[in-house]
């Protein structure tokens, strides 16, 4: 049995905000099945007594004094925007018509 179904991949694509064609989904479902089969090996040694490592350094949160430092001007910050309006990022509608 496949580790992951085509429907599950379609749901993941929706969660990841990537439109996918039927062809892309068919192809990816097959590949994901093979890859998941290979990476599932980690479970062989991941016993309950092993602590997880999320990061190579044992760093704590880094803070600094709350002082104003040089930063981007509004026009620099907007320089790569696909669309702008009155010095702001212009985005497609977020709320529906109704």
């Amino acid at each position, binding site marked *: 049995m496949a580790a992951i179904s085509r429907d599950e*991949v379609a749901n993941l694509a929706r969660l990841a905000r990537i439109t996918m064609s039927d062809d892309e989904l068919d192809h990816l479902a097959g590949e994901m099945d*093979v890859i998941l089969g290979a990476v599932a090996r980690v479970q062989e040694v991941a016993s309950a007594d092993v602590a997880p*490592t999320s990061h190579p350094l044992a760093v704590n949160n880094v803070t600094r004094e709350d002082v104003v430092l040089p930063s981007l001007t509004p026009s620099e910050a907007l320089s790569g925007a696909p669309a702008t309006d009155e010095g702001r990022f212009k985005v497609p509608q977020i709320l529906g018509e109704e």
Partner: protein
Amino acid sequence: MSVRDNASVMAAALNKKEISAVELTNQHYEQIAAVDKDVHAFLYLDKEGALAQAEAVDKKRAAGEKLSPLAGVPLALKDVMTQKGIPTTCGSKILEGWRPPYDSTVVTKLKNAGVIILGKTNMDEFAMGSSTENSAYGPTHNPWDLTRIPGGSGGGSSAALAAFEAPLAIGTDTGGSIRQPAAVTGTVGVKPTYGGVSRYGLVAFSSSLDQAGPCARTVLDTALLHQAIAGYDNKDSTSINQAVPDVVAAAKKLDVKGMKIGVVKQLAGDGYQKGVEDKFNEAVAELVKLGAEIVEVSCPNFEYALAAYYLIAPSECSSNLARFDSMRFGLRVGDDGVKSAEEVMNLTRQAGFGREVKRRIILGTYALSSGYYDAYYGSAQKVRTLIKQDFDAAFTKCDVLVSPTAPTTAFKIGEKSNDPLAMYLNDIATIPVNMAGIGGMSLPCGLAAEDNLPVGFQIMSPAMKDDRMYLVGGALEAALLSKWGKPILDFAPKLAGSK
């Protein structure tokens, strides 16, 4: 002075005013014009900016100002690093035409050091790949054989060095993207200790693994570049606030007498090309001749490193790449005034991301989803602990660890592009270093008998002991050079029009 000289030779000639930075920069653009149509190492050339930088360095030198050691020496910058006003694509369509409004810390340091940035180099999209075939702008070709891959993800940087288009380059290494390209092109590359070089302005792929580092044609040149870009940066919260080890002195020392060098049992055997293993073993024998002591060490959990990596890196990438949402910068597709932001986001990411990036985002989204988190991402994090423990135990028995950098020499373009798992196996020997956040170097150790292509020798050193890999690498390089009689790149066939 020729573009085939090493960076340190160029630096000395500049210092003695035998050549100006402008002349040296122009020589490199001539070489690029002659060979890059075949190699395709560069995505963008900033000739105007580079010549202005070079002129400024020449003026300072003429005025008798004290300059840093690499002032006036040209460099190729991987296209994953931001440089103010210069297109930064990460090899992706989603960032086509984007000009970042700020410099990465690495670029700031390079500019302050007077290093001349020639242009941006090709890479696998968002640094995901081992062949540079995943670039949205077409593959880079290996200067040793144009039908073969230059490694990845930093294949543009390694190819630029091997084709004498630049004597220095910047790479980034998440699972081997500096070291494996160095291995398959006969060049040198170093992944510094995690936190040793600032990640500010490095477009993130997998934040707990990503590390920028230096690439060059010799160990000393690599050390000089390392010195120029390393050090604490308050703009990177994971930057290490400690003195940078003296890697330049280490590269010059050429003395490994009494050092203990561990050969990792698990990074050999099945899957490793015979010619690769032979050249690796010959290099180990050279180290013995130089007075080093060889210890065999066992790192049993390394065999799980690849599997853990292909859960951790995609998980972090699925989160990091969420920022490419078409709202504030980059590509936007389907904005017809009717479609919602979410629909536009979906269409933009479909059009803007390539196959490998989508594959990893989906894999990471799966590994992080509730119900699967513990079994996949959680287990991979535990393997990460076990790998760190293997390294810790090994470093109680030896000063550095060594292995082949990559299991094979450069393969043919197209050979593995439809088999993601086969492609992932290229990273089998480089990944453990990233998982533990320690340092790793690759330097050339010969040509494989089967195909006459370069083989990489990997040296791994404990965190913040980066000087050790330069010490061993420098000594080995000198021994091999006297054995070969000339640098390894002089064995490569000459490209049409090349100097």
